[in-house]
Structures are given as structure tokens and as C-alpha cells.
């Protein structure tokens, strides 16, 4: 039964082990979001060992080669990813403990300082020499909190049900196996800060012991970095080029990168060169960022609504196309043999996904 598989067969060639230093762009629209596909990427990278309940994992590589994942999310919190991954049989909290997974939270405190607004910006100056010595313990914000000493990455993840026992807000907020991003200042300095923080997390996963002595491969998933662009914009000195360069910096640290962007019509087509109307800076920058990202991508996976309107047993359309950078790397050869395709998908209530061709 295809519906029982966490990873539908049709998806396997696209989501499992993206090639070295490649960029995969995942575009979504309001009514067809891409979180389920991000989860499939996580599952393809992490799930080989976790879900080996007799299912043959059809992958191009032997099951021993696992990669690690860093997930940077700007629109969804840790709870969401943890619960949704659990539906697939991935225990992200445990994987975090074993240094196979790391979550970087770009939602909770990106624009708001957490609890104590008294000390606004020491974070920025906490990194006098950037890029030196990847410490195993990260200098993160929560270290300043007296309630939560100790490195966040190693701390035990808290159970979810602290809601009912009325634990104090502060401790719950500071705990959790996550690293939080906070945008303290305008402009490129903030992006540099993020880049250093995320790179440090990637390097930590890379160098952490994992069986053989080699450096592990780290898949970086950046969920909706376009939010950063939309919410800052050129007036805060962050434009499409700057975000694009920021992603490039992250790409250099990671083995392979997946980035999701919104491709809603107002965000792409209002500013399109083919449209003859004035566009707002938000639309222009977003379109430039999304299109440039697609130009740099090896693979572009586009999610959209069904043209014929909503249906009960179809969630949307997935089109996989070759991005602008496809074929740039000569080394890419046989193992990268996937073909462009357009399929329908249906996300079931239990979290399973069915992928099928039109008319099947």
C-alpha cells in the first residue's frame, strides 16, 4: 500500500540524498504549503535507521550512510516540527540528543527580545572573533539566563505537556533543544550574525562523533528565508541580493541545502518583467529573490493548487523541474538521474502522503 509508506516511491529519487553542494528550492503557495515535503526531506535523511520496520528503503546508497540535518525554520516552531515528525516516526528530540539533528528557531524571538527587554543587544557583540574555533558549546542567548545555564544543544528536550502543570514561563521558554535566532540590528550585520550562528551549528553536527571518523554530511533545510526579506526589506538594508548571498554562505558550510520560498502569484508576478504595472518594493525584492534562488538551484520543486479548484482527495500539484544551475557540476552523472515530472499529491489526515500521476 503506497499510503502506508512515510516516503512515497515516486518521491524517493527527488528527496533522498541531494548531491554535494547542491541547492534544492521548494516553492509553495498559500493553499499548498510545503511543510509535508520538508518533512519528507528530513525523513529521507534521518529515517533510514529510525523507521526500519521491515520496509525496504530504496535509496541510492547503502543504509549505513546517514546524513545529519539542520533545520532553520522561520515560520514554524519547534513544537510543530517535533509533532509532525513524530507522525512519521521520527523522534526529533532523540535525534537532537544524538547530534543527528539540530533545530534553529527563527520564529520565537526573531523580532522580539525574549523576556528581559532591559538588555537589548549584547548578542551582537558576543562574537568578537567570528569563525574561530568551532566550540562544541555554543555561545547562545540562553546562557545569559540564570535559569538555564549549560549549552542548549546538549540539554534534555523538555516534554510537551508542561502546559497543564503550570511550569513557569521562563524556564519553559529557555529550555528545549533549539537555538533561537534574534535579529538585533538592521542590515547585513544581522545576516552575518545568523550565518555565524547557523554555521556553528552545522559544524558542530559535522564534527560530532558518528561511527566512522569521517565528517558527516549535513543537509541544511532553510524554511522560508523569504520571511526575513519580506519583514526587513530594502529600507533596512536587506535586499534580495543580501539574502541570496546569505544563503550562499550557508550553502558553503553545509553539504547540501534545501530552501523553501513562497511563490504566490502576488509575490512573483506583480513585479515580473512581463507585468506592466508598478510593483511595491516587497514584491520586487521577493520576486528577485525567489527567481534568483531558482536560477541557482539544481532542482526546483513547485507546489501549487489544483487548477480546477479544491478537491477532496487531492491536496495539490507538485512539479519537479531542473533549476537554472542544473548541469553545472560536471561530476554530476549517473547518480543524479532524475527526470522532470508533474504529479498530484494528497496529504491525509494521519500525516501520510499519497503521490500519484494525473489520471492514476
Amino acid at each position, binding site marked *: 500500500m503506497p499510503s502506508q509508506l512515510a516516503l512515497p516511491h515516486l518521491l524517493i529519487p527527488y528527496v533522498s540524498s541531494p548531491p554535494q553542494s547542491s*541547492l534544492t528550492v521548494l516553492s509553495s503557495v498559500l493553499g499548498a504549503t510545503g511543510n509535508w515535503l520538508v518533512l519528507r526531506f528530513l525523513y529521507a535523511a534521518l529515517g533510514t535507521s529510525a523507521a526500519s520496520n521491515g520496509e525496504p528503503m530504496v535509496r541510492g546508497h547503502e543504509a549505513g550512510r546517514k546524513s545529519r540535518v539542520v533545520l532553520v525554520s522561520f515560520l514554524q516552531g519547534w513544537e510543530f516540527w517535533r509533532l509532525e515528525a513524530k507522525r512519521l516516526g521520527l523522534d526529533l528530540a532523540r535525534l537532537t540528543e544524538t547530534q543527528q539533528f539540530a533545530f534553529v528557531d527563527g520564529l520565537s524571538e526573531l523580532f522580539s527580545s525574549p523576556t528581559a527587554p532591559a538588555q537589548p543587544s549584547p548578542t551582537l557583540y558576543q562574537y568578537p572573533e567570528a569563525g574561530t574555533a568551532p566550540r562544541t558549546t555554543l555561545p547562545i542567548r540562553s546562557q545569559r539566563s540564570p535559569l538555564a545555564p549549560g549549552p542548549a544543544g546538549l540539554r534534555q528536550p523538555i516534554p510537551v505537556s508542561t502546559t497543564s502543570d503550570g511550569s513557569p514561563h521562563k524556564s519553559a521558554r529557555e529550555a528545549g533543544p533549539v537555538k533561537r535566532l534574534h535579529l538585533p540590528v538592521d542590515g547585513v550585520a544581522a545576516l552575518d550574525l545568523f550565518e555565524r550562528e547557523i554555521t556553528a551549528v552545522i559544524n558542530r553536527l559535522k564534527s560530532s562523533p558518528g561511527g566512522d571518523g569521517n565528517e558527516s554530511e549535513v543537509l541544511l533545510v532553510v524554511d522560508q528565508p523569504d520571511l526575513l526579506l519580506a519583514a526587513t526589506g530594502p529600507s533596512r538594508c536587506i535586499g534580495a541580493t543580501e539574502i541570496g548571498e546569505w544563503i550562499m554562505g550557508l550553502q558553503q558550510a553545509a553539504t547540501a541545502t534545501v530552501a523553501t520560498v513562497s511563490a504566490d*502569484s502576488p509575490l512573483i508576478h506583480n513585479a515580473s518583467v*512581463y507585468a506592466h504595472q508598478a510593483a511595491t518594493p516587497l514584491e*520586487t525584492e521577493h520576486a528577485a529573490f525567489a527567481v534568483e534562488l531558482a*536560477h541557482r538551484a539544481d532542482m526546483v520543486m513547485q507546489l501549487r493548487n489544483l*487548477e480546477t479548484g479544491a478537491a477532496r482527495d487531492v491536496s495539490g500539484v507538485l512539479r519537479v523541474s*531542473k533549476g537554472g*544551475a542544473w*548541469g553545472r557540476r560536471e561530476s554530476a552523472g549517473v547518480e543524479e538521474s532524475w*527526470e522532470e515530472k508533474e504529479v498530484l499529491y494528497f496529504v491525509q489526515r494521519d500525516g501520510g502522503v499519497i503521490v500519484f500521476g494525473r489520471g492514476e
Partner: protein
Amino acid sequence: MAPSNLSHRQTHNLLLISKLLSLRDTASPLTLLLDSLEQPATPLVKEYIRRARLSKIHVTLVAFETLKPFDGVDVFVSARRKTPADIVKEVSAAYTPGSSDNLNRRRLILIDSINPLLRSTHLDKSFDLSTFLSSFIVPGGTPTSKVDSSVVVTFHQDVPGRCAQSPYVPSPLTILTYLATTVIKLHSFSHILTQKAARDRSLVPPVFGIEEEKDGVLLGRLDKPVGKDTVEGVVLEMEYRRKSGRGVLEWYLLPPASRYPATHVREIVTLLDDHPLYRPPEEHNARGEEEEPESTFELRLTERQRREREGVVLPYFDAQQGDGPGEGGRILYDMGEEDDFDEEEDEI
């Protein structure tokens, strides 16, 4: 078009594209590649690199969006977070022509995408696109060793430009197309064929990708359009400005790199008009349709037969004389030698 004219055009324009792509005689110091997501410039850039390697041209890649260098690139300059001045400095430092081997060395500078530079919010007001580009071609430093540099710049057409700082300054794309000696616009061959098929039927040619303006569609390209065989290849719409001022416009087809070995020396680019899929060999068909349908007996007339037939005065000519009813209306016919006249049957 007369056949002689066409063949002249073929040889001439094929020579031209061969010269341009192989960077001979510095025919085009600044080439602008206009690409889009529907047809990225990667195959053409690779073709440039391939030819440059064949003729031992030094290749520099200025990377605004590429992470790892292409194969065959001698120097890789990452332009991420660098000022234009730094980039120019780094590029000119990357190549010092060895004076010993060859005085007249050539070099190719590829810029993988100029868009990030043009969109950057950190450009100071003094940045000038034309001086930036010309500083690659004419390095200010050492005039002793002459280096022929050719710059090939890729511009993504589908990336919207920044809101103009001043409404009176021409847009960067306008400046680029004005400066460039050669402008090559890339199209996907299968799209060109689809559009041509629509035009041939007087339909509105379809658009693809972002132009479709469909929600959620960035890329319309699929390897195999439904119900069609794979049509590979890149169509190049070239505009070349000669020194004389005359422009040359031509459409070419670059076959996919898998069709020929990397060391292939002969010209592989063809005119689009020569491709059988784009322009089916209709000359023969057209001529064929003029001919009579074949049959077992001859219906055609020889020249002489035709002349004689025209010489026949038809009966109504006499009938018009008005000699009265029943008069006139005779067939006047001069007997020829081949007429087998029978006195009894053929009475006049």
C-alpha cells in the same frame, strides 16, 4: 529567398558565430547572454569554456551565484560580499601573462550573473556599470603585455530590477544591451517549436514559466512535454554589432553537449532555419505539389500541342457574327500532319 542568398547567409553567419564563440580576433569584447529560468545560459557558457580550452584561452569565472567552479575554469573568483573594485582587482591579479611563451595571450572572463550586483543595496553612488565592465577589458595596469580579454556577462531576464533610483537614468539592462557588442538571447528549442507550431496555425503562441502568471509556477519547463519526444538544444537569438555599425541578426541552434565529444573541433552550431524540425524540408514538397498527380496515362501537353490548342478558334467566335440561327458555330481547324484524317468519318 533565393537559394544562393541563403547559402551565402549560411556560410557567412556560421562563420560569424564560430568566430564569436571561439573568441577569435576579439570579435566581441563584451558579450551579453540574456537567459531565463526557461532556458538557462549554462549550456552556452559551457560551450564557451569548452572552446576556450581547445584554443588554450585562459578562463576566469567571476561567480556571483556559483558555489563551485565549472570544470575547465582556470581561475574562480567568488564575488560574494565584495565591492566591485575588489572584484576588478582580484580578476586582474588572477592572470599575469607569461611574457616568455606568447605575447598575444587571450583570456575569457565569465560573469555568471550580473543581477546580484545590479540589485545590491550596498552599491555606492559612484558605481558605474560601464566602467566596471570596461575595466575588465582594458586593465589599467600593465600596458607592456597585451592581453585580449573578452567578457561574457549573463543577465537573468526574469529577475526584476530594482526600483530606479533616478527615473532619468537608463535601466541597467538598457545600458548592458547598449554596451554589448554581441547580445545572445537564449530560448529553449522545444518552446520555440511549440510557439512556431501555434503561429503556423495562426494561434496565439503559448508562453512558459513565469510568463504564464500561474499561481505557484516559477518554471514551466519539463523535459518531455506531453505527447512529444524530447527536443533538446538551445536556440540562440544573436544580435551582433559590427564596427561598421551594421547589425547582424540570426537565430542559431546549439545542440546539447551530449551529442558531441568535448574535443570536437568542427562547428556544431547550426542555423535554426536549417534544422529539419524548425523548417521541414518544404522546398521539395512545395515543388512536388505543383506537379500533376501521377497516373498511367499522360495528361500533359507538349509545348507544341499547347500552342496548337490555343490556335483553335472555338465555335462561338463564329456564332457571334450573327449570321442567323444555325449559322456559324463551326469548328475551324487546320489539319496537321499528325492528324489521321478519315474521309468518311471526319466530314467538314
